[in-house]
């Protein structure tokens, strides 16, 4: 008794599962994340500068927001942040989104791509009516 048929079937199922990422991406037409910095406010900025360098913000923006939330909401420290002569409010809506008003093209672009679902919008209004 070899049960060859069942073994082959099992191997096909194994291969189908293990190689799923490859054949499901055949052709390589998958969309790539392209966050947009093109908003009216940013365009008008002479020096395009955030509270921290771009590379840092890419990796750590969630930490920055988390820290702001704690300082403002829990400790009442609402003093503004001064970077390069510009004042930033420690606020998602009034700070970040003052410039990055394009939530769908900016936040959602990468969050969707990386399968990240932040809970910012559980409380905050996105200003666009949708959710990220």
């Amino acid at each position, binding site marked *: *008794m*070899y*049960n*060859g048929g069942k*073994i082959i079937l*099992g*191997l096909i199922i*194994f*291969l189908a599962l*293990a*190689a*799923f*990422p*490859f054949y*499901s*991406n*055949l*052709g*390589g037409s*998958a*969309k*790539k*994340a392209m966050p947009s910095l093109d908003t009216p406010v940013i365009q008008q900025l002479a020096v395009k500068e955030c509270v921290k360098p771009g*590379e840092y913000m*890419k*990796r*750590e923006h*969630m*930490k920055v*927001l*988390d820290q702001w939330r704690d300082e403002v909401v829990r400790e009442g420290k609402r003093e503004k942040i001064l970077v390069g002569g510009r004042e930033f409010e420690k606020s998602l809506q009034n700070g970040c989104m003052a410039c990055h008003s394009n939530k769908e093209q900016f936040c959602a672009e*990468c969050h*969707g*791509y*990386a*399968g*990240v*679902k*932040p*809970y910012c919008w559980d409380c905050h209004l996105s200003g666009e009516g949708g959710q990220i």
Partner: protein
Amino acid sequence: MGMLFSLFMVAALIVVAYAGVAVVNMQNLFGVVIPYAAIAIFLAGVILKVLKWSRSPVPFHIPTTCGQQKSLPWIKHSSTDNPQTTGGVIMRMALEIFLFRSLFRNIKSEVTDGRATYGSDKLLWLGGLAFHLTFFTVLIRHLRFFAEPVPAMINTIDALDGFMQIGVPHLLMSGVILVAAAAYLLWRRVGISQVKYISLAADYFPLFLIISIGLTGIIMRYFAKVDIVSVKKMTMGLVSLNPVVLSGVGSIFYIHMFLISVLLIYFPFSKLMHMGGVFLSPTRNLSNNSREKRHVNPWDYPVKVHTYEQYEDEFREKMKEAGIPVEKE
């Protein structure tokens, strides 16, 4: 000795990956060439190993029966622990593979005050199940790096895994449990003298490897963060056969990838093949119906026997004297 060797090996692998990327800039080797080779070796290795097993037949019907057989209709039969039908076997295998049924039976035997006693011992079952289930969860979660758009199911798993919303990025429990369970399995090998005695380098190595993979993943997510979008562009490049190497992805990612590649390469040649073997184990995947349906042995051949005729020739006189009927007077 086996343990120190394995620890040293895994440490060496980490150093190699780090040096390869951070010192001599071989991102291409560690980010593209080795992962591709690893996947190829893994897939081919597993398939060839299973095919190799399948070339040996199951000549006899040898299920280990762990419950009441099916005999008389009024006797309650244990349909999964001693299955009589294919459906029963499927149930038995499913319980074995998803819930580690046999390990759940585990009891601890001790001889105390000169008397053998037994007690429930579910820790190995719990640790083993936690390890395998979280390993599987982590694997599934990683599909977010290999699919665009990310399937809704993956987002749901991610949300469930992180439902406690501890910290940012939110803590995924599966990764922590995976490392903790692997550490428990490692502790058993060191802390229980009997298990230590039977352990080989081949038992420590995969544990150190998997713990290191888990820890590098955790470090990458919570501590030494990498640009996750660039990471996904690289992983998507790999699976769409358009590999790219991007800057902004730290060495920790390459170490993580390299250790996974080593695990994949090591897999088909090691005890990790229990993943495939459990399906083929003849003591589990056969029904106890060998009196009802004949099991055929493909290599069966005639053997020399002592026939009745020979027997009667040897004992005819004694048989006649004892009044036993004979064929030839």
